[in-house]
């Protein structure tokens, strides 16, 4: 066991942090948020230049050959400044789907474009009725000639409007809750029959509900095996849990630093509030939550590629619950410690609060995963 980042990993974190230091002040972020895309295409291009968009991909496809550890470290840096760009859906979610299930042709067509920043993708799996149940898919894909026709709808798809391509799950067989019969398709976001209803999410990023009506795709657009999409979806979800766990750690660090700074400067009853023990102990609790959360992000990172599926599912559930609870505790406490100013839109802490809230319910919240763990007890 060795928890120290390697020299290369340290360099990666330094260069990412430096870039974000130049591009991601809270004021700059507000500017990106106001752009039509809801993020900064210029910063996206910088991510590409730095090789971040190729992070988890093999070098033969123009990738960086990184491991989940590098993804965790980068996500942590992103979490510290609340990056708005579609890194998670493009590189982590769809990137994992391509890595796990993509054919050589699909990989060579798409991964280099992702890595160079010209292709953005979104992962369109969740449906309104499914809540967190990954098998609950009623969108259908029906055979038609040499291809398929998709019908149905997807909900809260992060950065869907920014995407050039979507990964869409649809039923090619089985009933609503069956594990078998789900197939993944690569769908052009501008394809006829794809319609989006976009909105701003609570974390300041954009998301959309998607309706698919008579959308035609070819056999070459099937990602992985027909009917066997669930295993890939599971891998995508695990990658998302690990990545957002890292992001939550970064967000917690930022909130704790802000809170500490505030406690030194905010004077009440003639002294900085940080001199009061009740405030100090709350901050000590916040620090402990951050570190226990960091341990859970490490657990997710070391489990995400575990070939033992049952063990992986168990560990990812532990991590998802732990990081979610830690993020919630630190967020709520940070707002509380700031008092009134923490309630304002113009101050940063509330934005961190809201990002943690969004992450917490991405692909399942702590209650959902606690239930899974509870089912194993005994």
């Amino acid at each position, binding site marked *: 066991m060795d928890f*120290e980042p390697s020299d290369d990993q340290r360099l990666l974190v330094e260069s990412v942090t430096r870039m974000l230091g130049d591009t991601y002040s809270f004021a700059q972020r507000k500017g990106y948020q106001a752009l039509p895309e809801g993020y900064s295409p210029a910063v996206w291009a910088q991510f590409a230049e730095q090789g971040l968009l190729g992070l988890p991909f093999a070098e033969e496809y123009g990738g960086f050959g990184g491991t989940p550890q590098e993804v965790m470290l980068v996500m942590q840096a992103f979490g510290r400044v609340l990056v708005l760009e579609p890194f998670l859906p493009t590189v982590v979610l769809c990137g994992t789907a391509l890595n796990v299930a993509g054919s050589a042709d699909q990989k060579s067509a798409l991964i280099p474009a992702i890595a160079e920043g010209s292709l953005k993708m979104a992962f369109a799996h969740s449906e309104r009725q499914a809540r967190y149940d990954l098998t609950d898919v009623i969108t259908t894909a029906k055979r038609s000639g040499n291809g398929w026709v998709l019908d149905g709808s997807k909900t809260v798809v992060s950065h869907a409007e920014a995407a050039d391509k979507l990964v869409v799950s649809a039923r090619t067989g089985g009933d609503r809750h069956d594990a078998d019969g789900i197939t993944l398709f690569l769908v052009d976001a501008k394809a006829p029959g794809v319609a989006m209803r976009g909105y701003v999410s609570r974390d300041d990023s954009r998301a959309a509900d998607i309706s698919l009506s008579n959308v035609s795709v070819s056999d070459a657009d099937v990602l992985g095996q027909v009917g066997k999409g669930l295993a890939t979806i599971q891998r995508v979800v695990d990658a998302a849990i690990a990545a957002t766990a890292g992001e939550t750690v970064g967000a917690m660090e930022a909130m704790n630093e802000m809170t500490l700074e505030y406690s030194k400067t905010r004077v009440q009853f003639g002294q900085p509030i940080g*001199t009061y023990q009740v405030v100090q102990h709350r901050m000590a609790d916040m620090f402990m939550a951050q570190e*226990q*959360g960091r*341990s*859970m992000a490490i*657990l997710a990172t070391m489990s995400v590629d575990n070939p033992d599926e049952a063990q992986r599912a168990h560990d990812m559930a532990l991590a998802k619950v732990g990081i979610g*609870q830690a993020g919630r505790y630190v967020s709520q406490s940070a707002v509380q410690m700031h008092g009134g100013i923490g309630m304002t839109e113009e101050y940063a802490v509330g934005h961190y609060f809201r990002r943690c809230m969004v992450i917490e319910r991405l692909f399942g919240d702590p209650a959902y995963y606690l239930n899974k763990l509870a089912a194993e*007890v005994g």
Partner: protein
Amino acid sequence: MDLRFTPEELAFREEVRAFIRDNLPADTRDRMKLGHPPRKEDTVRWQRILNAKGWGAYSWPKEWGGPGWTAIQKMIFLEENLMAPAPELLSFNITMLGPVLIQFGTDAQKSRFLPRAANLDDWWCQGFSEPGAGSDLASLKTAAKRDGDHYVVNGQKIWTSTAHNADWCFVLVRTDPNARKRQEGISFLLVDMKTPGITVRPIISIDGSHHLNEVFFDDVRVPVENRVHTENKGWDVAKYLLGNERTGIARLGKSRERVTAAVAMAKEVNFGGQPLIQDQIFRQRVAQLQVDMKALEITQYRVVSAYDKAKGAGKPDPLSSVLKVKGTELLQATTELAVDVSGPMATPIWAQELEALNEPDDMLEASSAGTGAYLMLRAASIYGGTNEIQKNILTKAVLGL
């Protein structure tokens, strides 16, 4: 960064587990499985078995009879020992006195005391707290006046765990009442408990056990050669000792063992017409404990692995305070779980009358022992620096306030 155990570490865990399985005396194991604390003879016998194997002084360097393990190995050993469940190594001997003598002791002190401590030929206790000096340890008053080649000690210690079992006691005394700072007038003495003038008076804890004591010093003569480190520099020794005490303080294996026992009992007891194990609230509670134990486990490995990297040269890691707080919260939460599983059986006291019946009633005995552990472990957030003091430490060390 490598977040997995190495094959060597995995093999080491297997080796430790197998040794404990094959060598832990069955009567000790059976008692402890029921949730009883080890008796004095259980602890002594187990310490000697481990010491014969070369593992007794598990945290000491090879030069002084330790196995020379990495911090990760030490942690694996402690966890396996707790989960067995086997008696814990006597911390006064192994994690407190030993490292202190190795760091500060004279050669004569080392060769006289270390081998006997490792084999538990001497049972040590810790004379730190006083009626007026608990969390504020530096306000201690027990006085030692120089008289030729002796100190004459007068005063009172309290909360002295296992003093009634002890052959020796390491004691913090005030040797300079006029020191500019309170911390600067303290010395660290090794005191033979058979010395005339020492009186040990039991304090019965809320679990009914005799673990704690008051120790009175009435003109107790201690040879100057039994002072560790420089006169009036005992605070440095105490700080070093307390820093060392942190490493194994989470006692995570104990929490895990308690959850395993509670889950096993939950299969046997009825709750609304079905086994308690079927109850969703119970299952969620166990699941939540598993989450918290896993987070602590990884935090613990982060601390010890950083310690290995720094070759033990660094200052005590402030994360150690996280281990103390979260570890003791878990000890309390897991024993609370056990008490709740026991239901009404949690209330009878398993003592002479019931023991005398000589009819095995494991369910009742385990329930009673579980309650004992629950009551006793209310102390966990008090001893070793209360959890509130730990938060003060974090405030200073991490927040810089």
